């Protein structure tokens, strides 16, 4: 112990008085040398002083090395590292071009990867904010049309009672209600849940309590739990909020609790208020009306398959017991994490792959830069070696330089990534962001930092190894020689050209993926929607049930709205529907075809309740038959219009107009088919057209409907007027989400996803193109500079300019062709892997592949042309003279 202390002091003293140590040692060795020389001369008097001097020096050896080694014994281990560090900084500053380029490229590659990874992490990797979320599953009914379908409340109660695999099963639903404020009513997003919902998730309110057992029954008082955001926004985070009342849809609710800040439930988001079920009205109490989704906690040891088997058997029991409503209603169970983010996984992985490819290109580029630099430092390295630096010391030098560049690149990269994350998040439309709650507070989680650390580690290894390969086996004599070319460039040519081929191939892959995504987007946006979306404005209307309690009022209001809207200047037509197109195929009904044998099968079909002129407003084409008439309400026979897919599926080779449908009741209620309309894209743009049954609004009215208005003027300008018109009729009516049809289409989920991924990967591809072309330029230019003398000789011997061009361009062409070929093969593979994300394009889409090959070849030709020209215009005399 005392010894170590003493040694520490000794070292510290050395640290403080380094110069004195050096001077002392120098003097000591000088004296030693003198004595030696004197002895040599005494032993051999014939020796001249000069020879003796030389002999001594030779025996003594390398003075500097000696001093270094002596210093090494005494110095702290990091002193040499500090020395290396200072030296690295000097070197890097001298070659500022290289340093800055390398740092920027690393920063860009890292920023892209880390930014995308943070989105991937938040959506797919971050644990859900519930207790033990791996045990949570989403519970659904399952029908032919929708594998993941909603439950009816009576079914839920039976599943809850009869299941053996869940510790708890609860349901939830997303609801748009009206909130009564001082200034009138405004729409508000809420969630409607069964009483044990928060308990099954394992979430405890930070203030107050959540729903007590039985609080979701109709008889119980109406209570609500606030989301943290609502508590902040509407109540200023006041602790007195408990016990206050809020009026939702005309009903007062007592606030009983506030949820934690990090709580979110994506399938029901955005939800400011959470209310309990209170099953009321026709749909809630009907076993055949499906409006809620289930979430359950698996019992310990129960697998997903066991749970699925159990609920399927319950569904089958219910099928037997209630054939009218539960025929063909199956069951489906999936992990909650799948339900929340499963749809996003394919596209996020594609984006992450694109960023990774960009990172590879950046890394390869930097490696080439390093190789070039190592070549040009040959002489410096050789001299240092001659002065006594061991290969280990040199490698340590390179490692230090590499670490400095990587550290700087990482810092900038992380800063850029943070900015990039903010920018990308701001580009997501507000409605999506509100639903995708996991992306709301994006930051550097531990996993993201670990990912960045991994990249930095690989970069550090790359940066240190690349020049070390070169210096590990230097040929000192050759390197020191002036004008040496020997192995010069051959290491570079061997490795450097392979690197460029790799770069070009990677760029091809990125370009192809970007091209395919772009083409998908184009195809998507030009899908036949069955309407003319230009000049259409839309608005959602919801009347309060308190003042509009009965059906005649709903019909009257709807009629009044259309009259007023039609009177507006510029309006050529208007109509309403129960759900506007390009949304989803939901809201279904069951039917049977009268006159055909029926054994209780449920034919499920999308239903839309539309007014007269709805098809005219959209510009949809009526193929056969007639449109609805305004007078056709419940007093008249029931009628319906079907779409072409309906005809195709249910009436192949027959005339639908000669048939009648019926709902599934004991007594058939005949519905006459009066018209056939061309398919309208009611669901997402990339979905298949399904059969749709259009029913007159006047025969199936509701308090809410969605308005479509065709105008000869600017459809954007009319939106505020529409809202004002509604409020003129009755300010208590909620009019919300006004948008033009074009906006609805362009901002639909599938369009948005395709557009953003096309842009992002397109950005990566553009960067990749630039980087790889610059890389190719570097290789060719360097090769030219190495072969200047050879070219000079050739030209002096009579070679034409054209042959020089051929010489250089053929090498570049060879590299480019190999790179493009490999790239195309890899690209087809990559595209096949992401087929799920593409729309309307095959993975081996010839025009895209051809276009990418052409673009890259042209760029490569341009890049190699410049150095080729320089080579061809070399003055042989100059070339032969210089080196």
């Amino acid at each position, binding site marked *: 112990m005392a*010894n170590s202390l*003493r*040694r520490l002091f*000794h*070292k510290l003293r050395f640290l403080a008085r380094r110069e004195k140590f050096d001077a*002392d*040692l120098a*003097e*000591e*060795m000088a*004296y*030693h040398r*003198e*004595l*030696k020389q004197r*002895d040599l001369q005494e032993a051999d008097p014939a020796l001249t002083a000069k020879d003796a001097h030389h002999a001594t020096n030779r*025996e*003594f*050896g*390398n003075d500097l*090395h*000696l001093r270094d*080694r*002596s210093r*090494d*014994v*005494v110095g702290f281990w990091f002193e040499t590292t500090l020395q290396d560090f200072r030296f690295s900084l000097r070197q890097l500053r001298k070659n500022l071009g290289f340093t800055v380029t390398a740092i920027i490229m690393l920063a860009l590659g890292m920023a892209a990867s880390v930014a995308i990874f943070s989105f991937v992490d938040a959506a797919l990797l971050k644990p859900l904010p519930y207790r033990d979320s791996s045990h949570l599953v989403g519970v659904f009914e399952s029908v032919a049309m929708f594998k993941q379908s909603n439950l009816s409340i009576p079914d839920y109660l039976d599943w809850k009672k009869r299941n053996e695999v869940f510790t708890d099963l609860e349901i939830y639903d997303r609801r748009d209600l009206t909130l009564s404020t001082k200034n009138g009513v405004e729409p508000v997003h809420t969630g409607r849940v069964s009483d044990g919902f928060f308990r099954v998730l394992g979430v405890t309110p930070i203030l107050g309590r959540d729903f007590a057992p039985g609080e979701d029954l109709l008889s119980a008082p109406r209570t609500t739990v606030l989301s943290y955001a609502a508590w902040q926004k509407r109540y200023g985070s006041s602790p007195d909020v408990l016990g206050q009342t809020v009026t939702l849809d005309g009903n007062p609710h007592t606030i009983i609790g506030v949820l934690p800040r990090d709580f979110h439930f994506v399938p029901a988001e955005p939800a400011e208020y959470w209310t309990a079920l209170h099953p009321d009205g026709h749909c809630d109490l009907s076993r055949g009306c499906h409006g809620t989704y289930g979430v359950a906690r698996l019992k310990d040891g129960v697998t997903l398959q066991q749970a699925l088997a159990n609920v399927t058997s319950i569904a089958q029991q219910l099928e037997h017991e209630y054939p009218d409503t539960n025929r063909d209603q199956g069951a489906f169970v999936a992990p909650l994490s799948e339900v929340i983010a499963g749809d996003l996984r394919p596209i996020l992985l594609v984006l992450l792959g694109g960023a990774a490819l960009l990172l590879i290109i950046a890394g390869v580029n930097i490696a080439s830069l390093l190789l070039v630099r190592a070549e040009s430092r040959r002489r410096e390295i050789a001299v240092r070696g001659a002065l006594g630096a061991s290969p280990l010391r040199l490698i340590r030098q390179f490692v230090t330089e590499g670490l400095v560049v990587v550290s700087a690149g990482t810092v900038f990269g992380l800063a850029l990534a943070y900015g990039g994350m903010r920018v990308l998040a701001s580009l997501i439309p507000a409605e999506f962001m509100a639903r995708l709650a996991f992306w709301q507070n994006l930051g550097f989680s531990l996993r993201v930092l670990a990912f960045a650390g991994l990249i930095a580690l690989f970069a550090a290894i790359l940066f240190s190894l690349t020049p070390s390969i070169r210096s590990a086996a230097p040929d000192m004599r050759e390197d020191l020689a002036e004008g040496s070319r020997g192995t010069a460039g051959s290491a570079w040519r061997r490795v450097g050209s392979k690197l460029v081929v790799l770069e070009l191939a990677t760029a091809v892959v990125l370009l192809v993926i970007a091209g395919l995504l772009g083409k998908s987007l184009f195809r998507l946006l030009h899908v036949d929607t069955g309407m003319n979306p230009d000049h259409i404005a839309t608005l959602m209307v919801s009347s309060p049930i308190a003042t509009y309690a009965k059906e005649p009022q709903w019909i009257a209001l709807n009629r009044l709205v259309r009259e007023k809207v039609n009177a507006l200047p510029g309006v050529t037509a208007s109509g309403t529907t129960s759900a506007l197109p390009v949304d989803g195929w939901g809201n279904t009904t069951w039917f049977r075809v009268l006159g055909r044998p029926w054994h209780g099968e449920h034919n499920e079909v999308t239903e839309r309740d539309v007014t007269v002129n709805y098809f005219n407003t959209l510009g949809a084409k009526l193929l056969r038959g007639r449109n609805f008439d305004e007078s056709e309400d419940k007093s008249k026979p029931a009628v319906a219009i079907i779409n072409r897919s309906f005809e195709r599926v249910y009436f192949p080779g027959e005339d639908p107009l000669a048939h009648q449908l019926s709902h599934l009741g004991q007594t058939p209620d005949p519905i006459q088919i009066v018209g056939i309309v061309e398919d309208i894209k009611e669901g997402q743009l990339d979905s298949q057209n399904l059969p749709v049954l259009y029913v007159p609004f006047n025969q199936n009215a509701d308090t809410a409907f969605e308005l479509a208005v065709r105008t000869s003027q600017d459809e954007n300008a009319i939106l505020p007027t529409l809202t004002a018109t509604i409020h003129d009729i009755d300010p208590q009516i909620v009019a919300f989400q006004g948008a033009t049809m074009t906006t609805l289409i362009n901002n639909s989920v599938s369009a948005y996803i395709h557009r953003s991924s096309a842009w992002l990967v397109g950005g990566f591809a553009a960067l990749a193109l630039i980087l790889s072309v610059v890389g190719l330029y570097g290789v060719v230019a360097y090769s030219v500079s190495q072969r200047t003398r050879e070219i000079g000789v050739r030209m002096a011997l009579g070679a034409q300019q054209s042959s020089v061009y051929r010489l250089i361009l053929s090498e570049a062409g060879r590299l480019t062709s190999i790179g493009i070929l490999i790239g195309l093969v890899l690209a087809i593979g990559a595209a096949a892997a992401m087929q799920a994300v593409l729309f309307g394009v095959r993975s081996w889409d010839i025009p895209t592949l051809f276009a990418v090959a052409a673009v890259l070849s042209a760029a490569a030709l341009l890049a190699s042309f410049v150095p080729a020209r320089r080579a061809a215009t070399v003055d042989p005399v100059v070339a032969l003279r210089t080196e």
Partner: protein
Amino acid sequence: MTKPDLLPGTLDMLILKTLTRAPLHGYGIALSIKRISQDVLTVEEGSLYPALQRLLLQGWVKAEWKMTETNRRARFYTLTAAGRKQLGAELNQFHQLIAAITRVLQDQDA
């Protein structure tokens, strides 16, 4: 003529032993070892000075600048008490090692 390499770790021991008689400077130590070993062991300066630094660091020798007969400044190294103890320990180890090697070699011959 190839010079026989010193067994690793023996250099420290040789230096310490050389200093038991009297303090010496670097050249003196090298000369003494060379002479007493009858020219068999030549200590390279490249090994000597780092070794001296090591011994200094461990506190087994101490160094002082003194004037020589020729009125020049030279650094003289003196053995310390700890150094003497260390020398004893190293000698012990060395003898044990040699004895062991000898046993193996003799066994082979027999």
